[in-house]
């Protein structure tokens, strides 16, 4: 028999594609349970202060209302600790906002009441009848005003090795004495995730101590842990289901107030409660990419060698949590600068906490670093690609050790050729197409090739299908499809014979979907579970047929309804018999990273090339072509991976040209409250995005050779566009987004 065709690397269609396009895929807001009730949140209308009175009578009397819950009557969850004492947020200091526990107002639109009714419309109507009185205090929502009080994150104060601690190699701020130097400030505004699917949850207390949540989350296990802890329950008593997630981009990496509120509401009315945020509430209650100020100082020699970089940043956080991200990470390792200084600071504002947004930190940092690279190349009168080549790092200058793999040069070449980089003129404003000025720019991205620990389970079903399970979610990248391909190759079984189930906290433990780490982490677990299953089946088969006892794993072959051995047609064991044996066929394995991470620096790399057109009179910018090239190790599925790259590129267009959540500081309240005011790219803004993968396996991250794609797809896109705008116009925009008012 011929070996089955390899599935890894093939552009296989999504295993759930049909369900998604036919509407059969069920998202968290689509679960209908018997006797369900609907909850709507009432938000505060001041940014800081105390609630001094709540009039809920009219709401309580409104038709269909089951309960109006405020801090005055909400049941207290036993596990809620006073602010600052919650250990559930290891990356942050302080604690996630607990709702309905006190009269403190920490940001505008903070939930102050939850109204539960028998229909959504009635809940919504009644929610508007809740009247609140406040003792307002002076609030601060302006980053510029908060900058003087910016502080070093607590984690960095405690641990000088923390990634957010000040970093130094060579001389401090050496750029200041450089021969040729550049100093520039860069700002990115607040950006909001706005996945198509709104945040929603259905909370169901199946028994007083058993809770089931149909929730929009990127991590079923993390959500289970958070709410088990909040309610003092054993984790086994909480079940979190998130089979389909309609995009998240980091938005669902945290447990948010509305989830707590729905659980409280379900407890109070003793019915399953569904709560879905409005688009407006998506601005205020579930995080965003923080408004960040950065400054770069850079010096170089006349022949284009960087001699020093200083990169400082001040990012916004809330008053109750220290949210940090790796804004300065790329600067430490991307270019060969002997002197390098970074300083990362936070500024606390009276706004809800930020949360990681695709390419978290790095995308922000890359806007500054890659813009500065372009500015320096311009000062040197050098092609920006050539300038990057002259400062290329063959090994990690931060950790002083080899890369696990790095094919960024190959990406540079491939991208330059595809965009037509040779058309680029050194002198800005030299190319035009009618009334449109044409320019070319590039931006580099990187993100750690993270790998964590994960479990996966596998079992053979009587019909010859292998069922694999993992608690991991699939927020859109095609995790289910990639895992099916990995299992198909490992088992030598057709993908149709594999069923991979995900998105349920009862399944084998897996990490939260995020940080581009899922194929790296869950992939090996699936691979190992499949190998363990083969072994188990061999053992079971050996009981009735001795030939299996000494057989090699590679020889085990799955046929229509028998396990057989390659080269030994007599060895046959019927699936029906195998699955009947005591103990069954189920195996669960745990896969852990090797120690290689200590020896090598592991990163994915990308470079994006943009061709833009800027209208000479109106200042409108249109991206006419984007080429995104990635060194992301082995590409498991060319189609879904390409889809990730294109989505990330379009997200980068939004970041570069339009996304901007604006607060009126007098009220501490957003004035951009819907998708008519907060612009994301529409189809007409997205040009054809050409994707190129080096597709070389990384020998150290895991046995599959993968490195991760999701983040590098967007990191570096915004500066590529900003640099192209400079090349087209000679105007350097250092504050995103690049809207027409900044160019006209």
């Amino acid at each position, binding site marked *: 028999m011929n070996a089955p065709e390899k599935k890894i690397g093939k552009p296989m269609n999504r295993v759930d594609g049909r369900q998604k396009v036919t509407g059969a895929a069920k998202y968290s807001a689509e679960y209908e349970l018997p006797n369900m009730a609907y909850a709507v949140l009432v938000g505060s209308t001041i940014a800081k202060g105390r609630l001094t009175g709540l009039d809920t009578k009219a709401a309580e009397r409104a038709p269909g209302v089951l309960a109006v819950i405020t801090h005055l009557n909400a049941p207290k969850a036993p596990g809620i600790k006073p602010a600052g004492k919650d250990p559930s947020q290891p990356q942050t200091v302080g604690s996630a906002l607990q709702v309905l526990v006190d009269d403190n107002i920490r940001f505008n639109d903070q939930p102050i009441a939850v109204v539960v009714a028998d229909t959504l419309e009635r809940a919504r109507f009644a929610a508007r009848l809740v009247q609140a009185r406040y003792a307002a205090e002076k609030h601060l929502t302006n980053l510029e005003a908060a900058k003087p009080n910016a502080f070093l994150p607590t984690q960095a104060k405690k641990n000088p090795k923390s990634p957010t601690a000040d970093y130094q190699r060579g001389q401090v701020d050496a750029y200041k004495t450089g021969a040729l130097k550049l100093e520039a400030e860069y700002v990115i505004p607040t950006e909001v995730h706005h996945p198509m699917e709104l945040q929603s949850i259905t909370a169901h207390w199946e028994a007083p101590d058993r809770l089931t949540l149909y929730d929009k989350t990127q991590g079923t296990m993390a959500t289970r842990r958070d709410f088990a802890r909040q309610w003092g329950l054993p984790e086994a008593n909480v079940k979190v289901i998130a089979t389909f997630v309609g995009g998240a981009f980091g938005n669902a990496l945290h447990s948010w107030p509305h989830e707590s509120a729905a659980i409280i509401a379900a407890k109070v009315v003793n019915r399953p409660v569904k709560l879905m945020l409005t688009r407006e509430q998506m601005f205020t209650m579930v995080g965003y990419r923080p408004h960040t100020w950065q400054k770069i100082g850079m010096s170089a020699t006349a022949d284009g060698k960087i001699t020093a970089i200083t990169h400082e940043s001040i990012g916004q956080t809330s008053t109750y949590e220290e949210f940090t991200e790796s804004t300065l990470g790329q600067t430490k390792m991307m270019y060969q600068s002997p002197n390098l200084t970074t300083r990362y600071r936070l500024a606390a504002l009276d706004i809800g906490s930020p949360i990681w947004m695709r390419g978290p930190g790095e995308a922000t940092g890359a806007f500054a670093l890659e813009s500065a690279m372009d500015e320096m190349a311009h000062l040197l009168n050098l092609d920006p690609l050539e300038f990057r080549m002259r400062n290329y790092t063959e090994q990690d200058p931060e950790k002083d050790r080899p890369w696990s793999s790095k094919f960024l040069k190959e990406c540079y070449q491939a991208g330059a050729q595809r965009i037509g980089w040779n058309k680029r003129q050194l002198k800005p404003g030299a190319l035009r197409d009618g009334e449109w000025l044409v320019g070319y720019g590039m931006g580099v991205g990187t993100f750690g090739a993270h790998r964590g620990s994960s479990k996966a389970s596998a079992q053979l079903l009587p019909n010859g299908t292998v069922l694999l399970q993992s608690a991991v979610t699939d927020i859109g990248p095609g995790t289910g499809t990639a895992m099916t391909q990995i299992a198909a190759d490992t088992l030598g079984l057709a993908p149709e014979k594999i069923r991979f189930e995900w998105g349920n906290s009862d399944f084998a433990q897996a990490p939260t979907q995020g940080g581009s780490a899922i194929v790296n982490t869950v992939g090996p677990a699936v691979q190992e579970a499949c190998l363990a299953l083969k072994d188990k089946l061999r053992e079971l088969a050996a009981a009735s047929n001795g030939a299996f006892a000494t057989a090699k794993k590679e020889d085990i072959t799955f046929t229509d309804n028998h396990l057989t051995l390659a080269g030994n047609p007599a060895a046959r064991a019927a699936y029906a018999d195998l699955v009947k044996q005591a103990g069954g066929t189920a195996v669960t394995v745990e896969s852990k990273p090797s120690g290689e991470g200590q020896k090598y620096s592991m990163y994915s790399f990308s470079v994006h090339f943009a061709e833009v057109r800027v*209208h000479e*009179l*109106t200042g*409108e910018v249109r991206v006419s072509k984007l080429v995104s090239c990635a060194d992301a190790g082995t590409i498991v599925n060319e189609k879904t991976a390409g889809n990730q790259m294109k989505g990330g590129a379009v997200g980068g267009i939004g970041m570069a040209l*339009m996304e901007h959540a604006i607060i*009126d500081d007098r009220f501490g*309240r957003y004035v951009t409250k819907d998708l008519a005011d907060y612009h994301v790219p*529409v189809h007409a*803004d997205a040009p054809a995005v050409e994707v190129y993968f080096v597709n070389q396996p990384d020998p150290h991250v895991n046995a599959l050779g993968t490195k991760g794609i999701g983040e590098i797809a967007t990191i570096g896109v915004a500066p590529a566009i900003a640099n192209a705008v400079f090349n087209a116009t000679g105007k350097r925009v250092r504050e995103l987004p690049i809207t*027409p008012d900044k160019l006209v």
Partner: protein
Amino acid sequence: MNQFQYVRPTKPQAAIDAVAKDANARFIAGGTNLVDLMKRGVMTPQKLVDINRLDFRKIEREGNTLRIGALALNSTVANDRQVRERHPLLALALNAGASPQLRNMATVGGNMLQRTRCAYFYDITMPCNKRQPGSGCGALEGINRMHAIFGFSDKCIAVHPSDMSVALVALDATVQVSGPKGNRSIPFADFHRLPGDTPEKDTNLEPGELITAVDLPDSPFTKHVHYQKVRERASYAFALLSVAAALDIDNGTIRAARLAMGGVAHKPWRLTAAEQALVGKPATEATFQQAAAVAMQGAKAFKYNEYKLRLGPNAIVQALKTAAAV
């Protein structure tokens, strides 16, 4: 949303009566603006009078006038052969607005009467004289990057968001209305109001008056027209500023011109002085620049919309250049 009554009359008079007799009643056509405002609590009608069963959908030519029914859909009008041939500027402006889905619901009457997109008007917790007279203007010292540079008052600096209306004011349209006191016609330029001390009033319609049609006189502007809409993305965004330009060019000389701007005032902003500056001049960029300078006279900016002083003349020049194809 608040509770409300809903009626669907089949006779115009019944619809007019229903609204004229009840201060809390509103007509509803496509609903694409009114329903959003109701969801946000900005408008709280207690009765909706659905006019979709009335017979005002036709687009017909009578004599030298094209009559467009108030209930004709934005998409129908934009694709109508007579409109495209005789008034291509209108088709361009319509297609620059909203999205295909919205244009398939939105009506001509509703489009003219859509309310401002000013964020302070939309958020019921913020001050807005238009929504709540006497509460103050949030935009005056707030985030006013979308706001007016012409014709504003210290009570209101909002702009009218309709693209279609910019073309209609340029094309000398007339609005036909039917009300408790009978029928009347209102020149388009007098239909919308400046805010003055009563920004709560967007138009000069009387309570209960129903728009039945918009009339367009035949014009020579069938060839050299352009609608230049400057926005923050390629499609599906309200204008930062827009320009409707129509030229009648004879042998390189401008015989007649129409020019109006959107996104700059509480009403679609007709630029008659600039039109005059164009007439009799050669259709060249220099002429267009002079007209643009005339158009911008008296413009005044606020903290965040100062760019409109630069964008305005540029957009006018570009619109005229494209219209003239020079």
